[in-house]
């Protein structure tokens, strides 16, 4: 009997969702019977607030505000990071020139750029977009150039014997060979970009999920505050799922050949 249960736990992923449900039940019961505090409302009350703000469209407006800031900064970071990373990985001289600088800038935590940015680009949308951009840049950049640098000599020699020009070599070899690593960098950056977008909105903003959540806390709308966090969880989860879907399509060869599918 216990072996049957152990087998089921090993095979089925339902247990993970079961745990989430269990925790929510625990929250609900504790809020109803154990803790009587406005800071710990029952889950049902949070969901009520959540649905209310979803239906009146206000939450959607905040979601869109966060989404475009995040995506603009993230998109720019991906384009810049991948382009620079490809060039740095391919051209040794450029790598030697830029790599020490990258290594010095990289450990700076994203939020540390904030005070500087406020001085230079103010407190508007530009600040949030640039903040997201700066923090998302490095994972893409680093993964891209290490991906390119890991390309085997035999592969470059193959390109040469096939008479490919530099541009053709980039298209046929460098970009596809580095794509698994580029995508790894992009996935790391995606998570970071949401963090920084929210942070920027919490510092100063008039819309966005960060603003919504913090404002709810400051005005003691505790269920709304939790609803904001729920939204962020769902938002981040969906973005990641969407990303994994795209990734599986783009580099099916890599996932299959390395036995990950």
């Amino acid at each position: 009997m216990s072996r049957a249960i152990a087998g089921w736990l090993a095979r089925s992923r339902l247990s993970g969702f079961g745990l989430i449900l269990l925790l929510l039940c625990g929250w609900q019961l504790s809020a109803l019977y154990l803790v009587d505090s406005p800071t710990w409302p029952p889950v049902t009350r949070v969901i009520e607030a959540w649905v209310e703000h979803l239906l009146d469209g206000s939450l959607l407006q905040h979601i869109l505000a966060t989404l475009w800031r995040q995506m603009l900064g993230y998109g720019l970071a991906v384009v810049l990071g991948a382009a620079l990373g490809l060039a740095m990985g391919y051209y040794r001289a450029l790598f030697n020139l830029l790599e020490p600088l990258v290594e010095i800038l990289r450990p700076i935590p994203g939020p540390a750029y904030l005070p500087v940015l406020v001085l230079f680009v103010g407190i508007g949308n530009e600040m949030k977009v640039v903040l997201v951009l700066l923090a998302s840049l490095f994972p893409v950049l680093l993964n891209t150039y290490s991906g390119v640098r890991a390309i085997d000599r035999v592969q470059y020699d193959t390109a040469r014997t096939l008479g490919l020009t530099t541009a053709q070599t980039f298209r046929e070899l460098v970009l596809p060979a580095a794509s698994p690593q580029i995508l790894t960098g992009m996935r790391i950056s995606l998570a970071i970009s949401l963090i920084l977008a929210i942070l920027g909105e919490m510092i100063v903003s008039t819309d966005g999920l960060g603003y919504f959540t913090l404002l709810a806390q400051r005005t003691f709308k505790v269920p709304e505050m939790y609803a904001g966090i729920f939204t962020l969880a769902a938002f981040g989860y969906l973005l990641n799922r969407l990303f994994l879907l795209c990734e599986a399509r783009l580099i099916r060869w890599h996932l299959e050949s390395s036995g990950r599918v």
Partner: protein
Amino acid sequence: MSAWLEVQGLGKRFGESGRPVLENVSFSVDRGEFLALIGPSGCGKSTLLHIVAGLSRSTTGTVRLNGVPVESPRREMMFVFQQYSKSIFPWKTVLDNVLLGIRYQPDAGSRVAMERRARDQLELVGLAEFADYRPYQLSGGMQQRVAIARALVRRPDILLMDEPFSALDAMMRADLQDLLRRLWRELGLTVVFVTHDLDEALYLAQRVLVLSAGPGRIARTVPVPLPEARGQVETRSDPVYLDLRSELFRAMTGSTREVHPA
């Protein structure tokens, strides 16, 4: 026509003061010839082939093809690498890998013509049904066949092969040896084949060059007067083959003894 591909006084050292890897290597290859280069590991035979291909520069000496010095890869010569799993691009299907051989050639004709030509090569190496497979779905032997098809699609005169079958198991190696012999005869190719396996060299080639190690030099040139119709069983039990095998074995071990005096 003789002395078509000509290697003259080739020397190679890595770095200014590095030990020479190759020293004063000279030989020539006739059009249509099947030449094998054998030697102990580390004798620089792979380096030599890379220089002949124009993939690597020599320190001294020249390689000439039809009288023209070879300084970068030439269209008439195609290289087949030992590491087929890297040389064949895993993100492309088998057909697209072969197509890559010609898709940027301005004179290769329309897309349809190119594809027909690529499929013909796959047919030639026995992979017609595997055009839409990905390389990692194929065995090592089949992957190396894809590499050969990709080389052939460019209609080269010369195949330069760097231990192409050494990573394969015995049965697959025998299959590919026979395939290569057939292609060589049917297509009138010239083959320069590097291997450390003297049986392979004898079975395949018309002439075997034995390289000694430290630095690599040509120690012996052994013609292989075996009938051109060869078979894995008959040829390998032919008395001529067995005599040559002993001779080559002595030449090989002799050259290693020079490097590592007991």
